[in-house]
Protein backbone atom coordinates (compact mmCIF):
# COMPACT_ATOMS: atom_id res chain seq x y z
CA UNK A 1 0.00 0.00 0.00
CA UNK A 2 2.49 2.67 1.18
CA UNK A 3 5.21 3.69 -1.23
CA UNK A 4 8.50 2.12 -0.12
CA UNK A 5 10.38 5.34 -0.78
CA UNK A 6 8.17 7.25 1.68
CA UNK A 7 10.14 8.65 4.62
CA UNK A 8 13.42 7.78 2.89
CA UNK A 9 15.89 10.02 1.14
CA UNK A 10 14.38 8.85 -2.15
CA UNK A 11 10.89 10.06 -1.27
CA UNK A 12 9.17 11.49 -4.34
CA UNK A 13 6.96 14.54 -4.52
CA UNK A 14 4.25 15.39 -7.02
CA UNK A 15 1.11 17.56 -6.87
CA UNK A 16 -2.26 15.83 -6.88
CA UNK A 17 -3.35 17.99 -9.82
CA UNK A 18 -0.72 16.27 -11.96
CA UNK A 19 -2.17 12.87 -11.24
CA UNK A 20 -5.52 14.27 -12.29
CA UNK A 21 -4.16 15.71 -15.55
CA UNK A 22 -2.49 12.45 -16.55
CA UNK A 23 -5.60 10.42 -15.83
CA UNK A 24 -7.86 12.86 -17.69
CA UNK A 25 -5.70 12.39 -20.76
CA UNK A 26 -5.83 8.61 -20.37
CA UNK A 27 -9.59 8.38 -19.92
CA UNK A 28 -10.00 10.76 -22.86
CA UNK A 29 -8.19 8.22 -25.04
CA UNK A 30 -10.61 5.42 -24.33
CA UNK A 31 -13.87 7.27 -23.69
CA UNK A 32 -14.92 9.82 -26.25
CA UNK A 33 -17.76 10.98 -24.04
CA UNK A 34 -15.23 12.57 -21.69
CA UNK A 35 -15.11 16.32 -22.24
CA UNK A 36 -13.32 19.05 -20.30
CA UNK A 37 -14.23 22.64 -19.50
CA UNK A 38 -12.01 25.21 -17.91
CA UNK A 39 -12.33 28.77 -16.66
CA UNK A 40 -9.09 30.34 -17.91
CA UNK A 41 -6.76 28.20 -15.78
CA UNK A 42 -6.04 25.32 -18.13
CA UNK A 43 -2.38 24.77 -17.31
CA UNK A 44 -2.83 25.45 -13.60
CA UNK A 45 -5.48 22.79 -13.30
CA UNK A 46 -3.51 20.46 -15.58
CA UNK A 47 -6.05 20.18 -18.34
CA UNK A 48 -3.47 21.22 -20.94
CA UNK A 49 -2.56 17.68 -21.96
CA UNK A 50 -6.21 16.84 -22.56
CA UNK A 51 -6.71 20.12 -24.42
CA UNK A 52 -3.78 19.43 -26.74
CA UNK A 53 -4.80 15.83 -27.40
CA UNK A 54 -8.53 16.44 -27.85
CA UNK A 55 -9.05 20.08 -28.83
CA UNK A 56 -12.58 19.41 -30.07
CA UNK A 57 -13.57 18.03 -26.68
CA UNK A 58 -12.03 20.84 -24.67
CA UNK A 59 -14.00 24.01 -23.99
CA UNK A 60 -12.27 27.16 -22.82
CA UNK A 61 -15.14 28.96 -21.12
CA UNK A 62 -13.27 32.03 -19.94
CA UNK A 63 -13.66 33.25 -16.37
CA UNK A 64 -17.29 32.17 -16.07
CA UNK A 65 -17.58 29.65 -13.26
CA UNK A 66 -21.36 30.02 -13.08
CA UNK A 67 -21.88 29.80 -16.81
CA UNK A 68 -19.44 26.91 -17.03
CA UNK A 69 -21.52 24.91 -14.53
CA UNK A 70 -24.58 25.29 -16.70
CA UNK A 71 -22.71 24.38 -19.87
CA UNK A 72 -21.30 21.28 -18.17
CA UNK A 73 -24.79 20.38 -17.01
CA UNK A 74 -26.14 20.71 -20.55
CA UNK A 75 -23.38 18.51 -21.95
CA UNK A 76 -24.00 15.93 -19.24
CA UNK A 77 -27.74 15.88 -19.93
CA UNK A 78 -26.87 14.90 -23.51
CA UNK A 79 -24.79 11.88 -22.53
CA UNK A 80 -21.34 13.41 -22.04
CA UNK A 81 -19.11 13.08 -19.00
CA UNK A 82 -17.86 16.63 -18.37
CA UNK A 83 -14.96 17.50 -16.10
CA UNK A 84 -15.08 21.20 -15.27
CA UNK A 85 -12.20 22.78 -13.46
CA UNK A 86 -11.15 25.97 -11.82
CA UNK A 87 -9.65 26.89 -8.48
CA UNK A 88 -11.78 25.41 -5.71
CA UNK A 89 -12.35 28.89 -4.30
CA UNK A 90 -14.26 29.83 -7.46
CA UNK A 91 -15.70 26.46 -8.40
CA UNK A 92 -17.40 25.23 -6.24
CA UNK A 93 -16.90 28.43 -4.25
CA UNK A 94 -18.63 30.93 -6.49
CA UNK A 95 -21.08 28.70 -8.36
CA UNK A 96 -22.56 26.73 -5.49
CA UNK A 97 -26.20 27.37 -6.37
CA UNK A 98 -25.62 26.46 -10.01
CA UNK A 99 -24.00 23.21 -8.88
CA UNK A 100 -26.91 22.57 -6.54
CA UNK A 101 -29.70 23.26 -9.03
CA UNK A 102 -28.36 22.43 -12.45
CA UNK A 103 -25.99 19.60 -11.56
CA UNK A 104 -27.21 17.93 -8.35
CA UNK A 105 -30.96 18.52 -8.58
CA UNK A 106 -30.85 17.89 -12.32
CA UNK A 107 -28.85 14.79 -11.36
CA UNK A 108 -26.41 14.87 -14.25
CA UNK A 109 -22.90 13.39 -14.05
CA UNK A 110 -20.76 16.54 -14.02
CA UNK A 111 -17.34 16.25 -12.35
CA UNK A 112 -16.52 19.44 -10.47
CA UNK A 113 -12.76 19.67 -10.14
CA UNK A 114 -11.58 22.17 -7.54
CA UNK A 115 -7.86 22.82 -7.80
CA UNK A 116 -5.54 24.73 -5.48
CA UNK A 117 -7.67 23.83 -2.47
CA UNK A 118 -6.49 24.34 1.09
CA UNK A 119 -4.22 26.94 2.63
CA UNK A 120 -1.15 25.27 1.10
CA UNK A 121 -1.63 27.41 -1.99
CA UNK A 122 0.20 29.85 0.26
CA UNK A 123 1.35 33.28 -0.92
CA UNK A 124 -1.90 34.06 -2.78
CA UNK A 125 -3.56 34.53 0.58
CA UNK A 126 -7.00 33.92 2.02
CA UNK A 127 -8.99 34.98 -1.06
CA UNK A 128 -7.56 32.00 -2.95
CA UNK A 129 -7.43 29.45 -0.13
CA UNK A 130 -10.51 27.24 -0.35
CA UNK A 131 -11.03 25.74 3.08
CA UNK A 132 -14.81 25.41 2.97
CA UNK A 133 -15.25 23.45 -0.26
CA UNK A 134 -15.74 19.99 1.26
CA UNK A 135 -18.53 21.39 3.42
CA UNK A 136 -20.16 23.09 0.45
CA UNK A 137 -20.21 19.92 -1.62
CA UNK A 138 -20.86 17.39 1.11
CA UNK A 139 -24.28 18.76 1.99
CA UNK A 140 -25.68 18.49 -1.54
CA UNK A 141 -27.97 15.54 -2.31
CA UNK A 142 -26.71 13.38 -5.22
CA UNK A 143 -23.18 14.80 -4.86
CA UNK A 144 -20.19 12.52 -4.21
CA UNK A 145 -17.01 13.95 -2.70
CA UNK A 146 -13.45 12.79 -3.28
CA UNK A 147 -10.18 13.99 -1.75
CA UNK A 148 -7.04 12.25 -2.99
CA UNK A 149 -4.03 12.12 -0.66
CA UNK A 150 -1.41 12.14 -3.41
CA UNK A 151 -0.88 12.13 -7.17
CA UNK A 152 -1.28 8.34 -7.36
CA UNK A 153 -4.67 8.47 -5.70
CA UNK A 154 -5.69 11.51 -7.78
CA UNK A 155 -4.89 9.48 -10.88
CA UNK A 156 -6.86 6.48 -9.61
CA UNK A 157 -9.92 8.51 -8.58
CA UNK A 158 -9.97 10.42 -11.87
CA UNK A 159 -9.90 7.13 -13.78
CA UNK A 160 -12.78 5.94 -11.65
CA UNK A 161 -14.70 9.16 -12.37
CA UNK A 162 -14.32 8.50 -16.09
CA UNK A 163 -16.94 5.79 -15.68
CA UNK A 164 -18.91 7.32 -12.82
CA UNK A 165 -22.43 8.31 -13.81
CA UNK A 166 -23.23 10.73 -10.97
CA UNK A 167 -22.28 14.25 -9.88
CA UNK A 168 -18.90 14.37 -8.17
CA UNK A 169 -16.50 16.79 -6.57
CA UNK A 170 -12.77 16.18 -6.80
CA UNK A 171 -10.52 18.26 -4.54
CA UNK A 172 -7.00 18.92 -5.79
CA UNK A 173 -3.96 20.78 -4.49
CA UNK A 174 -1.29 22.92 -6.05
CA UNK A 175 1.90 22.10 -4.16
CA UNK A 176 4.17 19.16 -4.67
CA UNK A 177 3.41 16.71 -1.89
CA UNK A 178 4.88 13.31 -1.00
CA UNK A 179 3.90 10.34 -3.12
CA UNK A 180 2.38 8.21 -0.42
CA UNK A 181 0.89 5.29 -2.30
CA UNK A 182 2.36 2.60 -4.51
CA UNK A 183 1.84 2.82 -8.25
CA UNK A 184 -0.35 -0.28 -8.22
CA UNK A 185 -2.85 1.35 -5.85
CA UNK A 186 -6.44 0.66 -6.80
CA UNK A 187 -9.14 3.06 -5.71
CA UNK A 188 -12.20 1.55 -4.13
CA UNK A 189 -15.29 3.80 -4.20
CA UNK A 190 -16.70 4.69 -0.80
CA UNK A 191 -14.12 2.69 1.12
CA UNK A 192 -11.84 3.80 3.91
CA UNK A 193 -8.26 2.57 3.63
CA UNK A 194 -6.10 1.60 6.57
CA UNK A 195 -2.72 3.12 5.74
CA UNK A 196 -0.71 2.22 8.77
CA UNK A 197 -1.28 -0.01 11.80
CA UNK A 198 0.70 -0.02 15.07
CA UNK A 199 3.80 -2.23 15.08
CA UNK A 200 2.61 -4.03 18.20
CA UNK A 201 -0.38 -4.21 20.51
CA UNK A 202 -0.24 -1.03 22.57
CA UNK A 203 -2.43 -0.41 25.60
CA UNK A 204 -3.45 2.96 24.22
CA UNK A 205 -5.16 2.70 20.87
CA UNK A 206 -6.06 5.75 18.82
CA UNK A 207 -7.37 6.14 15.29
CA UNK A 208 -6.43 8.99 13.02
CA UNK A 209 -8.73 9.56 10.06
CA UNK A 210 -7.51 11.90 7.40
CA UNK A 211 -7.87 12.87 3.77
CA UNK A 212 -5.72 14.77 1.30
CA UNK A 213 -1.95 15.30 1.33
CA UNK A 214 -2.02 16.31 5.00
CA UNK A 215 -2.24 12.60 5.77
CA UNK A 216 1.55 12.69 5.49
CA UNK A 217 1.59 14.69 8.73
CA UNK A 218 -0.71 12.11 10.29
CA UNK A 219 1.64 9.29 9.31
CA UNK A 220 4.55 11.18 10.84
CA UNK A 221 2.56 11.82 14.00
CA UNK A 222 1.74 8.12 14.29
CA UNK A 223 5.43 7.26 14.28
CA UNK A 224 6.09 9.79 17.03
CA UNK A 225 3.19 8.58 19.12
CA UNK A 226 4.37 4.98 18.94
CA UNK A 227 7.60 6.09 20.56
CA UNK A 228 5.46 7.38 23.42
CA UNK A 229 3.58 4.12 23.71
CA UNK A 230 0.45 5.08 21.87
CA UNK A 231 -0.65 2.77 19.06
CA UNK A 232 -2.09 4.69 16.17
CA UNK A 233 -3.96 3.35 13.19
CA UNK A 234 -3.98 5.84 10.33
CA UNK A 235 -6.95 5.71 8.01
CA UNK A 236 -7.23 7.40 4.64
CA UNK A 237 -10.74 8.51 3.70
CA UNK A 238 -10.54 9.45 0.00
CA UNK A 239 -14.34 9.25 -0.39
CA UNK A 240 -15.88 11.74 2.02
CA UNK A 241 -19.31 11.13 0.58
CA UNK A 242 -20.66 8.51 0.66
CA UNK A 243 -18.90 8.04 3.97
CA UNK A 244 -17.71 4.53 4.80
CA UNK A 245 -19.93 4.23 7.85
CA UNK A 246 -19.62 0.46 8.05
CA UNK A 247 -15.91 0.82 8.51
CA UNK A 248 -16.29 3.70 10.96
CA UNK A 249 -18.57 1.72 13.23
CA UNK A 250 -16.20 -1.25 13.32
CA UNK A 251 -13.17 0.97 13.71
CA UNK A 252 -14.63 3.07 16.52
CA UNK A 253 -15.25 -0.07 18.55
CA UNK A 254 -11.54 -0.90 18.48
CA UNK A 255 -9.98 2.41 19.50
CA UNK A 256 -10.25 4.69 22.53
CA UNK A 257 -10.47 7.86 20.56
CA UNK A 258 -10.43 9.23 17.04
CA UNK A 259 -8.61 12.28 15.75
CA UNK A 260 -9.51 13.63 12.34
CA UNK A 261 -6.97 15.55 10.29
CA UNK A 262 -7.75 17.72 7.28
CA UNK A 263 -6.68 20.92 5.56
CA UNK A 264 -10.16 22.43 5.77
CA UNK A 265 -12.35 24.19 8.29
CA UNK A 266 -13.09 21.76 11.09
CA UNK A 267 -16.72 22.77 10.59
CA UNK A 268 -18.33 20.86 7.77
CA UNK A 269 -15.41 18.82 6.53
CA UNK A 270 -14.19 15.27 7.07
CA UNK A 271 -14.02 15.73 10.84
CA UNK A 272 -17.61 16.86 10.93
CA UNK A 273 -18.72 13.96 8.75
CA UNK A 274 -17.03 11.46 11.05
CA UNK A 275 -18.28 13.16 14.22
CA UNK A 276 -21.85 13.42 12.93
CA UNK A 277 -22.00 9.73 12.24
CA UNK A 278 -20.24 8.44 15.34
CA UNK A 279 -21.98 10.77 17.79
CA UNK A 280 -25.24 9.24 16.63
CA UNK A 281 -24.29 5.58 16.25
CA UNK A 282 -21.27 4.97 18.47
CA UNK A 283 -20.29 7.97 20.63
CA UNK A 284 -16.56 8.03 21.21
CA UNK A 285 -14.01 10.70 22.04
CA UNK A 286 -13.25 12.69 18.94
CA UNK A 287 -10.90 15.60 18.33
CA UNK A 288 -10.56 17.44 15.05
CA UNK A 289 -7.40 18.87 13.59
CA UNK A 290 -8.11 21.49 10.94
CA UNK A 291 -8.63 25.20 10.55
CA UNK A 292 -10.73 26.49 13.38
CA UNK A 293 -13.11 29.15 12.08
CA UNK A 294 -10.45 31.41 10.62
CA UNK A 295 -9.45 32.68 7.22
CA UNK A 296 -6.04 31.82 5.84
CA UNK A 297 -3.32 34.32 4.96
CA UNK A 298 -0.20 34.68 2.81
CA UNK A 299 2.81 32.64 3.71
CA UNK A 300 4.75 29.51 2.87
CA UNK A 301 3.08 26.19 3.44
CA UNK A 302 5.20 25.22 6.51
CA UNK A 303 4.60 28.63 8.08
CA UNK A 304 0.88 28.29 7.56
CA UNK A 305 0.78 24.71 8.86
CA UNK A 306 2.52 25.96 12.00
CA UNK A 307 0.19 28.94 12.42
CA UNK A 308 -3.00 26.98 11.89
CA UNK A 309 -1.99 23.94 13.94
CA UNK A 310 -1.73 21.41 11.13
CA UNK A 311 1.74 19.87 11.62
CA UNK A 312 2.52 16.40 12.92
CA UNK A 313 3.52 18.05 16.18
CA UNK A 314 0.03 19.49 16.57
CA UNK A 315 -1.52 16.14 15.73
CA UNK A 316 0.60 14.46 18.41
CA UNK A 317 -0.55 17.03 20.95
CA UNK A 318 -4.17 16.59 19.94
CA UNK A 319 -3.99 12.82 20.31
CA UNK A 320 -2.35 13.08 23.73
CA UNK A 321 -4.94 15.59 24.85
CA UNK A 322 -7.85 13.20 24.46
CA UNK A 323 -6.55 9.90 25.81
Amino acid at each position, binding site marked *: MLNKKLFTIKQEEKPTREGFGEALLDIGKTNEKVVALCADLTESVKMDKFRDAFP*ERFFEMGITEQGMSG*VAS*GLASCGYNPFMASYAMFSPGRNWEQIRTTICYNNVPVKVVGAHAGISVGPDGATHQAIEDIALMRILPNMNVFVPCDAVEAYAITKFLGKFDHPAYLRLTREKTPVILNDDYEFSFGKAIVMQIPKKDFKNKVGIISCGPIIYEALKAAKELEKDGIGVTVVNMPTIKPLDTKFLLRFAKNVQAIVTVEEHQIAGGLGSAVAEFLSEYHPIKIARVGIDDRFGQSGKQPELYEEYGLTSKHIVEKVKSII
Partner: protein
Amino acid sequence: MNSLTDIEVKELSLRAEDIRESIIKMLTTAGSGHTAGPLGLADIFTLLYFRVLKHNPKHPDWVGRDRVILSNGHCAPVLYASLAHSRYFPIEELNTLRKFGSRLQGHPHRESLPGIETTSGPLGCGLSQAVGMALADRLENYKPERYFYVTIGDGELNEGQNWEAFLHLNKYKLNKIITIIDRNSIQIDGFTEDVLPTESLRNKFESFNFHVIEVDGHNFRDLYTAIGQAKSTLEKPTVIIAHTIPGKGVLEFEGDFHWHGKSPNKDEAKQAIKELRTLRGKIEKE
Protein backbone atom coordinates in the same frame (compact mmCIF):
# COMPACT_ATOMS: atom_id res chain seq x y z
CA MET B 1 -40.81 27.49 -43.46
CA ASN B 2 -43.97 28.74 -45.10
CA SER B 3 -46.04 31.34 -43.36
CA LEU B 4 -49.06 30.31 -41.33
CA THR B 5 -52.46 30.03 -43.00
CA ASP B 6 -55.56 31.76 -41.62
CA ILE B 7 -56.89 28.42 -40.43
CA GLU B 8 -53.64 27.62 -38.64
CA VAL B 9 -53.65 31.00 -36.92
CA LYS B 10 -57.23 30.44 -35.81
CA GLU B 11 -56.45 26.99 -34.46
CA LEU B 12 -53.42 28.28 -32.60
CA SER B 13 -55.42 31.17 -31.16
CA LEU B 14 -58.06 28.80 -29.84
CA ARG B 15 -55.43 26.49 -28.42
CA ALA B 16 -53.74 29.42 -26.69
CA GLU B 17 -57.02 30.34 -24.99
CA ASP B 18 -57.37 26.75 -23.77
CA ILE B 19 -53.87 26.91 -22.37
CA ARG B 20 -54.65 30.22 -20.66
CA GLU B 21 -57.74 28.71 -19.10
CA SER B 22 -55.67 25.78 -17.83
CA ILE B 23 -53.14 28.21 -16.39
CA ILE B 24 -55.83 30.12 -14.48
CA LYS B 25 -57.41 26.91 -13.20
CA MET B 26 -54.19 25.30 -12.05
CA LEU B 27 -52.97 28.44 -10.31
CA THR B 28 -56.28 28.91 -8.53
CA THR B 29 -56.29 25.31 -7.34
CA ALA B 30 -52.68 25.62 -6.23
CA GLY B 31 -53.40 28.82 -4.30
CA SER B 32 -50.01 30.27 -5.17
CA GLY B 33 -47.72 30.78 -8.13
CA HIS B 34 -47.09 33.23 -10.92
CA THR B 35 -49.90 34.45 -13.17
CA ALA B 36 -48.73 37.28 -15.40
CA GLY B 37 -45.71 35.62 -17.04
CA PRO B 38 -47.40 32.34 -18.01
CA LEU B 39 -50.41 34.14 -19.53
CA GLY B 40 -48.07 36.44 -21.44
CA LEU B 41 -46.09 33.49 -22.77
CA ALA B 42 -49.11 31.40 -23.75
CA ASP B 43 -49.01 32.37 -27.43
CA ILE B 44 -45.29 31.70 -27.76
CA PHE B 45 -45.59 28.30 -26.08
CA THR B 46 -48.65 27.39 -28.11
CA LEU B 47 -46.78 28.16 -31.31
CA LEU B 48 -43.75 26.17 -30.16
CA TYR B 49 -45.59 23.08 -28.98
CA PHE B 50 -48.31 22.97 -31.65
CA ARG B 51 -46.52 24.14 -34.76
CA VAL B 52 -42.76 24.55 -34.45
CA LEU B 53 -41.29 21.79 -32.33
CA LYS B 54 -40.10 18.43 -33.54
CA HIS B 55 -41.12 16.29 -30.59
CA ASN B 56 -42.90 13.11 -29.63
CA PRO B 57 -45.00 13.25 -26.46
CA LYS B 58 -45.20 9.45 -26.40
CA HIS B 59 -41.40 9.30 -26.38
CA PRO B 60 -40.31 12.39 -24.48
CA ASP B 61 -36.66 11.27 -24.51
CA TRP B 62 -36.57 10.80 -28.30
CA VAL B 63 -33.03 11.79 -29.20
CA GLY B 64 -33.98 13.71 -32.33
CA ARG B 65 -36.29 16.13 -30.53
CA ASP B 66 -36.01 19.87 -30.35
CA ARG B 67 -35.68 21.08 -26.79
CA VAL B 68 -37.45 23.82 -24.90
CA ILE B 69 -35.52 25.26 -21.98
CA LEU B 70 -37.67 27.38 -19.70
CA SER B 71 -35.04 29.49 -18.00
CA ASN B 72 -37.68 31.61 -16.31
CA GLY B 73 -38.80 28.61 -14.28
CA HIS B 74 -41.46 30.53 -12.34
CA CYS B 75 -43.47 30.48 -15.59
CA ALA B 76 -43.81 26.71 -15.14
CA PRO B 77 -47.64 26.78 -15.53
CA VAL B 78 -47.39 27.68 -19.23
CA LEU B 79 -44.89 24.87 -19.79
CA TYR B 80 -46.99 22.37 -17.83
CA ALA B 81 -50.17 23.37 -19.65
CA SER B 82 -48.43 23.10 -23.04
CA LEU B 83 -47.07 19.66 -22.16
CA ALA B 84 -50.44 18.45 -20.89
CA HIS B 85 -52.33 19.75 -23.93
CA SER B 86 -49.67 18.01 -26.08
CA ARG B 87 -50.54 14.79 -24.16
CA TYR B 88 -47.26 14.31 -22.34
CA PHE B 89 -49.45 13.59 -19.32
CA PRO B 90 -53.18 13.87 -18.52
CA ILE B 91 -54.64 17.37 -18.47
CA GLU B 92 -56.33 16.60 -15.11
CA GLU B 93 -52.88 16.29 -13.56
CA LEU B 94 -52.48 20.06 -13.96
CA ASN B 95 -54.65 20.40 -10.86
CA THR B 96 -51.87 18.87 -8.76
CA LEU B 97 -49.59 21.87 -9.37
CA ARG B 98 -47.52 22.74 -6.28
CA LYS B 99 -49.18 20.02 -4.20
CA PHE B 100 -47.43 17.42 -2.08
CA GLY B 101 -46.41 14.39 -4.11
CA SER B 102 -47.10 16.07 -7.44
CA ARG B 103 -44.91 15.70 -10.50
CA LEU B 104 -45.72 19.35 -11.16
CA GLN B 105 -43.32 20.95 -8.74
CA GLY B 106 -43.58 24.67 -8.02
CA HIS B 107 -40.65 25.11 -10.34
CA PRO B 108 -39.84 22.51 -13.00
CA HIS B 109 -37.81 19.47 -11.95
CA ARG B 110 -36.21 17.53 -14.77
CA GLU B 111 -36.54 14.11 -13.18
CA SER B 112 -40.17 14.54 -12.05
CA LEU B 113 -42.10 15.04 -15.25
CA PRO B 114 -41.71 13.84 -18.85
CA GLY B 115 -40.89 16.63 -21.27
CA ILE B 116 -38.94 18.75 -18.79
CA GLU B 117 -35.46 19.33 -20.20
CA THR B 118 -33.92 21.22 -17.29
CA THR B 119 -34.60 22.02 -13.70
CA SER B 120 -35.11 25.76 -13.40
CA GLY B 121 -36.33 28.45 -11.07
CA PRO B 122 -33.19 30.11 -9.79
CA LEU B 123 -32.88 32.67 -12.57
CA GLY B 124 -30.26 32.94 -15.24
CA CYS B 125 -29.36 29.25 -15.53
CA GLY B 126 -31.18 28.13 -18.65
CA LEU B 127 -29.14 29.54 -21.48
CA SER B 128 -25.87 28.09 -20.13
CA GLN B 129 -27.44 24.65 -20.14
CA ALA B 130 -28.64 25.15 -23.69
CA VAL B 131 -25.05 26.06 -24.62
CA GLY B 132 -23.92 22.70 -23.23
CA MET B 133 -26.65 20.88 -25.16
CA ALA B 134 -25.80 22.67 -28.39
CA LEU B 135 -22.11 21.87 -27.92
CA ALA B 136 -23.06 18.21 -27.44
CA ASP B 137 -25.19 18.42 -30.58
CA ARG B 138 -22.24 19.82 -32.49
CA LEU B 139 -19.82 17.18 -31.16
CA GLU B 140 -22.19 14.49 -32.39
CA ASN B 141 -22.80 16.35 -35.64
CA TYR B 142 -26.41 15.29 -35.24
CA LYS B 143 -28.61 15.26 -38.34
CA PRO B 144 -31.29 16.30 -39.10
CA GLU B 145 -31.07 19.63 -37.32
CA ARG B 146 -32.22 19.88 -33.73
CA TYR B 147 -33.03 23.28 -32.25
CA PHE B 148 -32.87 24.59 -28.70
CA TYR B 149 -35.51 27.13 -27.75
CA VAL B 150 -34.68 29.05 -24.60
CA THR B 151 -37.14 31.43 -22.98
CA ILE B 152 -35.72 34.07 -20.66
CA GLY B 153 -37.66 36.71 -18.76
CA ASP B 154 -36.60 40.32 -19.23
CA GLY B 155 -36.25 40.79 -15.46
CA GLU B 156 -34.18 37.62 -15.48
CA LEU B 157 -31.63 39.44 -17.62
CA ASN B 158 -30.51 41.14 -14.39
CA GLU B 159 -28.67 37.90 -13.63
CA GLY B 160 -25.02 37.96 -14.68
CA GLN B 161 -24.94 34.33 -15.70
CA ASN B 162 -27.05 35.19 -18.76
CA TRP B 163 -24.34 37.50 -19.99
CA GLU B 164 -21.71 34.83 -19.50
CA ALA B 165 -23.90 32.58 -21.65
CA PHE B 166 -24.32 35.28 -24.32
CA LEU B 167 -20.52 35.44 -24.52
CA HIS B 168 -20.40 31.64 -24.86
CA LEU B 169 -23.03 31.66 -27.61
CA ASN B 170 -21.07 34.20 -29.55
CA LYS B 171 -17.76 32.38 -29.07
CA TYR B 172 -19.13 29.09 -30.35
CA LYS B 173 -21.61 30.63 -32.84
CA LEU B 174 -24.34 28.34 -31.60
CA ASN B 175 -26.92 29.19 -34.23
CA LYS B 176 -29.21 26.32 -33.25
CA ILE B 177 -30.02 28.04 -29.99
CA ILE B 178 -32.95 30.38 -30.47
CA THR B 179 -33.22 32.65 -27.47
CA ILE B 180 -36.61 34.21 -26.83
CA ILE B 181 -36.69 37.13 -24.41
CA ASP B 182 -40.11 37.58 -22.81
CA ARG B 183 -40.10 41.37 -22.90
CA ASN B 184 -43.12 42.01 -20.69
CA SER B 185 -41.40 44.90 -18.88
CA ILE B 186 -42.35 43.82 -15.35
CA GLN B 187 -40.64 42.00 -12.53
CA ILE B 188 -41.57 41.46 -8.87
CA ASP B 189 -40.65 44.89 -7.56
CA GLY B 190 -42.07 46.86 -10.47
CA PHE B 191 -41.33 47.84 -14.03
CA THR B 192 -38.02 46.50 -15.35
CA GLU B 193 -36.82 49.96 -16.32
CA ASP B 194 -37.36 51.16 -12.73
CA VAL B 195 -35.91 48.11 -10.96
CA LEU B 196 -32.78 47.87 -13.07
CA PRO B 197 -32.81 49.60 -16.44
CA THR B 198 -32.20 47.09 -19.19
CA GLU B 199 -32.55 49.11 -22.38
CA SER B 200 -31.38 49.26 -25.03
CA LEU B 201 -31.75 45.51 -25.29
CA ARG B 202 -31.39 45.49 -29.05
CA ASN B 203 -28.12 47.41 -28.87
CA LYS B 204 -26.82 45.15 -26.14
CA PHE B 205 -27.52 41.99 -28.11
CA GLU B 206 -26.23 43.43 -31.35
CA SER B 207 -23.01 44.40 -29.64
CA PHE B 208 -22.75 40.79 -28.43
CA ASN B 209 -22.92 39.88 -32.11
CA PHE B 210 -26.41 38.40 -32.17
CA HIS B 211 -28.96 38.49 -34.94
CA VAL B 212 -31.76 40.40 -33.20
CA ILE B 213 -35.43 40.25 -34.14
CA GLU B 214 -38.09 42.24 -32.30
CA VAL B 215 -41.58 40.90 -32.59
CA ASP B 216 -45.08 41.12 -31.11
CA GLY B 217 -45.15 38.10 -28.82
CA HIS B 218 -48.87 37.62 -29.38
CA ASN B 219 -48.77 37.62 -33.17
CA PHE B 220 -48.46 34.02 -34.35
CA ARG B 221 -47.56 34.96 -37.90
CA ASP B 222 -44.77 37.32 -36.88
CA LEU B 223 -43.43 34.93 -34.26
CA TYR B 224 -43.43 32.10 -36.77
CA THR B 225 -41.62 34.21 -39.33
CA ALA B 226 -39.08 35.27 -36.71
CA ILE B 227 -38.33 31.64 -35.82
CA GLY B 228 -37.96 30.85 -39.50
CA GLN B 229 -35.50 33.71 -39.89
CA ALA B 230 -33.59 32.50 -36.83
CA LYS B 231 -33.26 29.03 -38.32
CA SER B 232 -32.01 30.34 -41.61
CA THR B 233 -29.40 32.57 -39.96
CA LEU B 234 -26.37 30.31 -39.86
CA GLU B 235 -23.49 32.66 -39.18
CA LYS B 236 -24.63 33.85 -35.75
CA PRO B 237 -27.17 32.97 -33.08
CA THR B 238 -30.50 34.75 -32.95
CA VAL B 239 -32.22 36.52 -30.08
CA ILE B 240 -35.91 37.16 -30.50
CA ILE B 241 -37.15 39.99 -28.31
CA ALA B 242 -40.81 39.11 -27.96
CA HIS B 243 -42.86 42.03 -26.70
CA THR B 244 -45.59 40.55 -24.57
CA ILE B 245 -48.33 41.80 -22.29
CA PRO B 246 -48.06 40.30 -18.83
CA GLY B 247 -51.36 38.72 -17.84
CA LYS B 248 -52.46 38.74 -21.50
CA GLY B 249 -56.08 37.76 -22.06
CA VAL B 250 -57.49 38.93 -18.74
CA LEU B 251 -58.06 42.67 -18.56
CA GLU B 252 -57.59 42.93 -14.80
CA PHE B 253 -54.21 41.21 -14.92
CA GLU B 254 -52.78 42.84 -18.02
CA GLY B 255 -49.75 45.04 -17.50
CA ASP B 256 -50.03 45.04 -13.70
CA PHE B 257 -46.80 43.97 -12.03
CA HIS B 258 -48.71 42.99 -8.88
CA TRP B 259 -49.87 39.94 -10.81
CA HIS B 260 -46.31 38.82 -11.44
CA GLY B 261 -46.08 36.60 -8.41
CA LYS B 262 -49.56 35.81 -7.15
CA SER B 263 -52.38 33.50 -8.14
CA PRO B 264 -56.05 34.44 -8.65
CA ASN B 265 -58.64 33.61 -6.00
CA LYS B 266 -61.83 31.80 -6.96
CA ASP B 267 -63.80 34.93 -7.86
CA GLU B 268 -60.96 36.41 -9.84
CA ALA B 269 -60.52 33.09 -11.63
CA LYS B 270 -64.22 32.93 -12.47
CA GLN B 271 -64.10 36.38 -14.00
CA ALA B 272 -60.88 35.58 -15.85
CA ILE B 273 -62.24 32.37 -17.33
CA LYS B 274 -65.41 34.19 -18.40
CA GLU B 275 -63.30 36.72 -20.25
CA LEU B 276 -61.16 34.05 -21.87
CA ARG B 277 -64.23 32.14 -23.03
CA THR B 278 -65.82 35.28 -24.45
CA LEU B 279 -62.62 35.88 -26.39
CA ARG B 280 -62.53 32.26 -27.47
CA GLY B 281 -66.11 32.57 -28.74
CA LYS B 282 -65.16 35.60 -30.81
CA ILE B 283 -62.20 33.77 -32.34
CA GLU B 284 -64.39 30.80 -33.19
CA LYS B 285 -66.86 33.00 -35.02
CA GLU B 286 -64.17 34.74 -37.06
